[in-house]
């Protein structure tokens, strides 16, 4: 018997009898015969757990990358995940629940959503946040669509220093919605070079720190944009130390929350966070948990402002999103609660320190230099004559960095992107420098 289907022969007979049918096939009589006849099996026999497990583990372990020391960034970061996060995420009551449509039996989910929203608002300096989007790219694309709804503008200003993966996803959504993108260059520091703002602009996207690793200076930017949206795409760990875009006038702050207690996961699932100002609450995509009371006056939480959502508003909804990234948001919540303000700051500064220690040592190597002069956080571009060769040397020393082609769309052809987190040890830094130095 199938271990997931508890119907014995006797069960099946009794159930068929109650329905008034002779056999199981009769349950499918309403599927047009030609459709049933055209059906072809996949060609797979049922398998036992041992066999499937062996197959899967065998496949997974073919990935040599798991043995390399990662100095990989490019949007996702290898931070330490405290074991307590995994333990909470393994609580079956959390992970085997659906979206909390029925509040009274979902107070666990609704309460942490409320906590998560608070934490995201605090990190970003914003007033309201939703309970998650698929990933940072989707959050950014949705912010663009929201800006369009709010401002009526169409053109989106996109820095050349935007992470190319983000750019590609935003471009897809924007094309669908009929919104043109326009490039904004960066300067020798690797920072946004914002000249004049053309008319009819819908929004400017700024990534903080940007894809070159450079910290942007957002002061005065919103003032220059006027009604157009300032959309900040912010990296959450640096936000512990950097001025939150919300305090600098941003209309929406979105980003990728993977770094907050979620594994790299080969790129999915991820966690898009989305925060904005109260004024835009009714334009915001996604689920929101709100505090209320029960009939006895006891505090409780419900999903609220659902009239924005697809299941009520249908084609008029603020987004089509339904399933989101809840469990990853729970991970972020537990992570932030575990670290607290001091711990988060510590992780940020440790990562900062590792990156700067490494950058300094690399810059002293002959033939290597930092590509940009601007301030950076935990990621930076190394300039060298032959990036492919540099990466190859690192690889042979058991070190992984993002392939140089990643930077090509940014106009960087002589660079290697390097990121560090608090997990990188002195010994690993030594190994990195030694490999580059050719020793």
């Amino acid at each position, binding site marked *: 018997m199938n271990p997931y289907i508890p119907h014995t022969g006797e069960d099946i007979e009794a159930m068929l009898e109650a329905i008034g049918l002779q056999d199981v096939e009769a349950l499918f009589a309403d*599927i047009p015969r030609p459709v049933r006849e055209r059906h072809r099996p996949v*060609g797979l026999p049922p398998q036992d757990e041992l066999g499937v497990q062996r197959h899967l583990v065998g496949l997974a372990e073919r990935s040599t990358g798991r043995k390399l020391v990662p100095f990989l960034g490019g949007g996702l970061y290898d931070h330490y995940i405290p074991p307590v996060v995994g333990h909470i995420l393994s609580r079956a009551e*959390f992970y085997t629940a659906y*979206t909390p449509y029925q509040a009274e039996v979902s107070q666990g989910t609704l309460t*942490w959503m409320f906590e998560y929203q608070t934490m995201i608002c605090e990190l970003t300096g914003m007033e309201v*946040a939703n309970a998650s989007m698929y990933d940072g790219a989707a959050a950014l694309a949705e912010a663009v669509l929201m800006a369009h709804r709010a401002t009526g503008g169409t053109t989106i200003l996109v820095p050349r220093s935007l992470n190319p993966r983000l750019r590609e996803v935003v471009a897809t959504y924007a*094309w669908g919605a009929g919104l043109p993108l326009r490039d904004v260059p960066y300067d020798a520091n690797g920072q946004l070079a914002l000249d004049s703002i053309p008319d009819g602009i819908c929004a400017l996207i700024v990534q903080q720190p940007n894809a070159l690793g450079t910290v942007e200076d957002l002061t005065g930017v919103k003032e220059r944009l006027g009604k157009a949206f300032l959309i900040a795409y912010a990296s959450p760990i640096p936000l512990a130390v950097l001025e939150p875009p919300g305090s600098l006038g941003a209309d929406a702050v979105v980003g990728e929350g993977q770094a907050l207690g979620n594994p790299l996961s080969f790129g999915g699932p991820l966690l898009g966070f989305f925060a904005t100002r109260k004024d835009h609450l009714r334009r915001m995509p996604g689920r929101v948990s709100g505090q209320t009371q029960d009939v006895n006056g006891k505090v409780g939480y419900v999903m609220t402002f659902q009239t924005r959502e697809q299941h009520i508003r249908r084609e008029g909804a603020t987004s089509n999103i339904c399933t989101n990234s809840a469990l990853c948001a729970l991970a972020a919540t537990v992570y932030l609660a575990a670290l607290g303000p001091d711990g*988060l700051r510590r992780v940020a500064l440790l990562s900062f320190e590792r990156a700067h220690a490494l950058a300094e040592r690399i810059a002293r190597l002959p033939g290597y230099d930092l590509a940009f002069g601007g301030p950076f956080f935990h990621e930076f571009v190394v300039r060298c004559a032959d990036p492919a060769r540099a990466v190859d040397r690192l690889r042979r020393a058991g070190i992984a960095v993002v392939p140089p082609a990643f930077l090509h769309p940014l106009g960087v052809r002589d660079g290697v992107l390097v990121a560090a987190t608090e997990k990188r040890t002195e010994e690993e830094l030594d190994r990195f420098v030694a490999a580059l130095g050719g020793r």
Partner: protein
Amino acid sequence: MSTIYDRGAPGRRALALPSLGQPEERLLGLIPAGMRRKRPPRLPEVSQPELVRHYTALSRMNYGVDTGFYPLGSCTMKHNPKLHEDLARNPALADLHPLLPPEDCQGALALLWEFGERLKAITGMPGVTLQPAAGAHGELTGMLLLKKWFEDQGEERKRTKILLPDSAHGTNPASAAMVGFTVVSLPSDRRGMVDLGALNLALGPDVAGIMLTVPNTLGIFEEDILEITRLVHEAGGLCYFDGANLNAYLGRARPGDMGADVFHINLHKTFSTPHGGGGPGAGPVTVSEALLPYLPVPDVVRDGVEFRLAWDRPNSIGRVHPYLGNTLVMVKSLVYILTLGDEGMREVSAGAVLAANYLRAKLKGAYVLPYDRLAKHEFVLSGEGLGEGVRTLDVAKRLMDYGFHPPTVYFPLIVKEALMIEPTETEPRETLDAFADAMLAIAQEAKEKPELLHQAPHATPVRRLDEARAVREPKLRREF
């Protein structure tokens, strides 16, 4: 409920971190003063024991598949096999960075490739993209594919309408709208199926396509499906299939054989991945021959025993995901497919449809059954006429007192006071019987003691919550 902010005290922490090794100021000096944060984010300050107790306590206020029957219609809340969870936590997958060069992530690529092949075979369609992160994301991808197709046909400006049965899920119209399509609603007929006459009237040179759910959200298989897709194709349109209900015919029929051009699959429904209290899921999309050139890039391609990423698709709609999709979710579904095999997949749909019809038979005397025909994996009752002022919401809340999660309510919209019941194949008959007994008892209570229902739930951590108040006095974050 008290939140984590109500626990703890300044200075407490749940984790011992390495020390910085140098004064903060030295490091901070490297960031321009204007970009330095003035006020730290207000985050909880709790010790590890407090942290663990708080979230353990929260979890205990939740209802999940592992705690009980969860017949939430349209959501396919089936058992989540434990093997899947463990395999997805394997560091060889979970700790893999997606920007590693292909030669260093062959395992992950192999797995994604195999998964894509399986989905193509299961749906009978020649192309697949694994990027969409959920069903609605798959719908968006599908709508973008339609837009691109008509652009390529030079019909982009003409074909602006998407036909949508009135029973459709909310994500369908919302997805169409995101790509600028106008939504035209198609009425259902007395059978609860697409009205062919109305379809014929609606079709024309301005129609880009139709979005169908098969079986539809009433749980009814569109018996005219071949006719419908033929008519749409003849009118120059394309057929989008919402695959949320694939559990109803898994291993027995394929959308590719029904005329689908695009088909999304909610892995967190049919393919057993847990829903996580809202997500993450995954919504891979399979497509017909015609749409192959437009699929997102990159593709995972097999070259002998090696796997690589291919970008050679000039007409692609582009990326909808920054990497290759929700790999850790797909692993679970791949394991599920391999465990089931063809035989197991047939058993899944058999079990799901059997259970739904069994409950339908048991409940149809006591509740209004607006469309009384063979159901597939779910069926829809109406809470109308149960008793003095009793609404479907009351039935739902009362079910909690009996220890069950309520069905989906007030959807589909075409049934008044809808109660949409999807038992799935993973429930023992004893549980179905107990649920039916509770439903029958509640119908009785509705007549005899309606206040029991109005005041329900009684046995939950909080009593009925005031949703209006949440909107009237919005509290969407803790204020300090």
